[in-house]
């Protein structure tokens, strides 16, 4: 009991001190990009746009991008900006954009905004991408532009093709970013090229999936499910069974609402690959 008599005040004091400290913490900036890696910063005179992703790099295909906008004078992060963004490919003969989502504030977060861009082609020595951010803070408009680096991927993760309906489509691999030996939930994005600057989501098509291992007799796996449109995410979801690690070729066929195959062929003994495919390796 004696011990308690001494201990109790000490404990009380300790609790008060630690509580006070906690209160102070609230005013410190919360690091909402802790799990992400900085890709690069794009600045203008007033602000810096910090671009983050899990890998810290951009690459050909689907890129999930988180940004944070920093006020150059105060050092604070802007919490109430409205964003537009526009990636642009500067080719030797022309310019074009690519499919992308809106860039919106992440719900429940203070400082970060998120969206995705699908780079359907990689940069090369003469041609490259830049990214423009047009944003509004309290009715005032700003613009920040910077060159970005979009190297090619080893495996084909995005495909641009002309359907039998004479429409140019872009299909991209989205998830899983870390495939495993299991039945994976698989997500693709499907867009059509209306013109050089507009790539709207294609809705209610079906993407038929046949994963194969060309290095191992081109065998497939069981219990895959074709990808169907998910109106909530504006993407296509299905199931991808991977029976072993390694290189898998995801043979695809694109079917429109009328059940017509717009691109791709069935894999058979004589036809080892569809003309429409994506690739993964893990």
């Amino acid at each position, binding site marked *: 009991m004696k011990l308690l008599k001494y201990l109790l005040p000490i404990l009380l004091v300790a609790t008060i001190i630690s509580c006070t400290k906690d209160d102070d913490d609230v005013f410190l900036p919360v690091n909402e990009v802790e799990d992400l890696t900085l890709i690069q910063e794009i600045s203008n005179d007033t602000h810096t746009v910090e671009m983050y992703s899990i890998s810290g790099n951009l690459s050909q295909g689907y890129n999930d991008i988180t940004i944070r906008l920093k006020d150059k004078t105060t050092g604070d992060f802007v919490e109430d900006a409205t964003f537009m963004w526009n990636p642009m490919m500067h080719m030797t003969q022309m310019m074009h954009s690519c499919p992308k989502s809106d860039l919106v504030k992440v719900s429940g977060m203070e400082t970060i905004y998120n969206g995705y861009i699908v780079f359907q082609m990689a940069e090369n020595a003469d041609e490259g991408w830049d990214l423009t951010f047009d944003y509004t803070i309290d009715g005032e408009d700003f613009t920040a532009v910077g060159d970005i680096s979009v190297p090619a991927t080893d495996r084909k993760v995005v495909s641009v093709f002309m359907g039998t309906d004479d429409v140019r489509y872009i299909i991209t691999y989205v998830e899983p970013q870390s495939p*495993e*030996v*299991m*039945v994976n939930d698989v997500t693709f994005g499907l867009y059509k090229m209306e013109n050089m600057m507009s790539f709207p989501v294609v809705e209610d098509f079906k993407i038929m999936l046949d994963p194969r*291992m060309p*290095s*191992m*007799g081109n*065998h*497939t*796996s*069981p*219990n895959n499910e074709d990808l169907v449109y998910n109106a909530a995410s504006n993407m296509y979801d299905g199931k991808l*069974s*991977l*029976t*072993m*690690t*390694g*290189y898998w070729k995801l043979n695809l066929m694109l079917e429109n609402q009328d059940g017509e195959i717009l691109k791709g062929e069935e894999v058979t003994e004589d036809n080892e690959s569809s003309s429409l495919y994506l690739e993964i*390796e*893990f």
Partner: protein
Amino acid sequence: MYVMKNIIVFTILGFIFSSNLFSQSIAQDSTSIIGLSEVIVISKSNLKNQKQVKPLSSIDEYLEKSNNVTMIKRGNYAWEASINNMLSERLSITIDGMQIFGACTDKMDPTTSYVDVSNLSEVAITSGQQGAENGSTIGGGIDMKLQKSGFDKETFIVGVDLGYETNSNLRVASSEINFSNSKIFTNVDGIYRKSDNYFAGGDEEVLYSQFEKYNLSGVVGVKTGKNGALIGTVIYDKATNVGYPALPMDVSLAEALIASVNYVQDSISKTIQKWDTKLYYNTITHIMDDTKRPDVPIHMDMPGWSDTYGFYSKMYAQKTKHSLLFNLNGYYNRSLAEMTMYPNDPNENSMFMLTWPDVRTLYTGIYGEDRFSIGSNKELKFTARFGVQNATIGDEFGLNSLRIFYPDLEESKTRFTYNLASQYDMSIKNTKLLFSLGYGERAPSVSEGYGFFLYNSFDNYDYIGNPYLKNEKALEFNTTINQSFNKFKVGAEASYFYISDYIIGITDPDLDQMTIGADGVRVYSALDHANILNTSINASYKPFTSWTLTGMLSYNIGKDNKGNNLPLLSPFSYRAALYFKKNLFDAEVNLNGASKQINFSSYYGENETEAYAIVNLNASYKFYFGNQNLYLKAGIENVFDTYYSTYSDWNNIPRMGCNFFVNISSKIK
């Protein structure tokens, strides 16, 4: 040196001597059959019991001599035993009551491959439910008993055995040192075998049939009191560079460490005669290797591991007319196997899968046996085993892999198994009759339950395990009759198995094979039922004291519920032997053969196997020199160099052609 000199001299002498006598040689059955059990004596320590056909035979060759066992051959090493035309999944195969599970997904390492004749005193083979003493079974049991000297008057024996066989250039050397007195005994032995490729009849070399192995073992027994003893055993077995001509891959390493400690107490009370408790552990590493094959579509590594921890406690009791045996046993096994394939494009990632997903099997069971006499020369025996078996998938990668096929698969499953049998035997004058009735169950094996793309080169299909399989159940009926006349004995045996939920692979046309060149995928499934009938008759005739003539005919048939043949069922087969023994000399000539295999299973990759008949000869002589004795045995197998293969040869690989062998055993007391 003196010993060595003698050995060399007698080797040469032996060749001349024995080859001169082949024309008069003869035979005797090397096994004793009591009811549904058979005991093969292996121990070389008992040289009076000169029943071995070839003392340095592999354990596989010994088993093959048994009337009840046939060996499935994938090469010249590590054959798989079959009893009542049922293979290892349906059998209980133990080493001195210890459970050991091979670590190879392709059954390249049956339990029997991890011991050698140098370790064993005898092998007990039991048919059907009579084999349930050490574990649940359908087809029967094989228990390989380790050699232990026992506490005796002070003795010190050094033995050396040497063997050579011409066909495969097989070299065998074995040595043992046995010491015993009334308080302690030790047995230490080692054996080494090395074989090149063998040649089938007509001098056709069977490529990739080489092997090399050695086996070391040590046993120590210490008396702990008047009737108690503590016995420890360790066996280390290592085979390297083992070729499997019938398979697309070889084995670079098959290694086992088998250890046990047991405590035996005799004469505990008037009722309890013996109580034997053992703790054991074994670990197996098995590494397949295809780097020596010139044309593989893709290189792959396929290592496997199997670790088992177990115990048993057996009590032998006698109460009035009842002889009782109780065996409480349990084991915990971990089986893990993986496969890594290396694409021809070196820039591509390797392809990895778990073929056995770290399956942890925990089994606990109890066995009881009661044998009692009901009047003169009539005996009844009841046996029962009850077991609880839990299998848990320990590896998440493996669990996810199997969930590709079985989305709702739980990682753990518990089963109960029941085995029951009764046996009645009677003898009236010179007639012995035996009837038995049994019911048995078994849980699916690791491959049957959890295998993931296991390629079977026999039917050329990839196999997928099925965790939802029911226990396989068998109802069996056996009868034997033996009649002896003055110099003539005749016996007949029949056993019938009605197996329900018979586990076998069935093609799933919706699944795509993984293995390059395979025909498809089979999923382990349960047939409603299958029937197996095994029949045999045997006779022996002893016209003169030194001469014995024996013969045996057997016929087996197995059908599934649709009337299709089951795979790996022996056709009509026969054996005959003439045996001569006089003083220290004995000789044998025997004939083995089978009819054309008509009832083959093309669905499971079998085709018609031609009839064959082969002749073997051997002779032996024992020499005594004071404290030493020297036993010399030589013979010719497949005398006429017949090119043949049997129903039990995987993918019809031909068997060995003409082979001369010589074995020399020397003992110094």
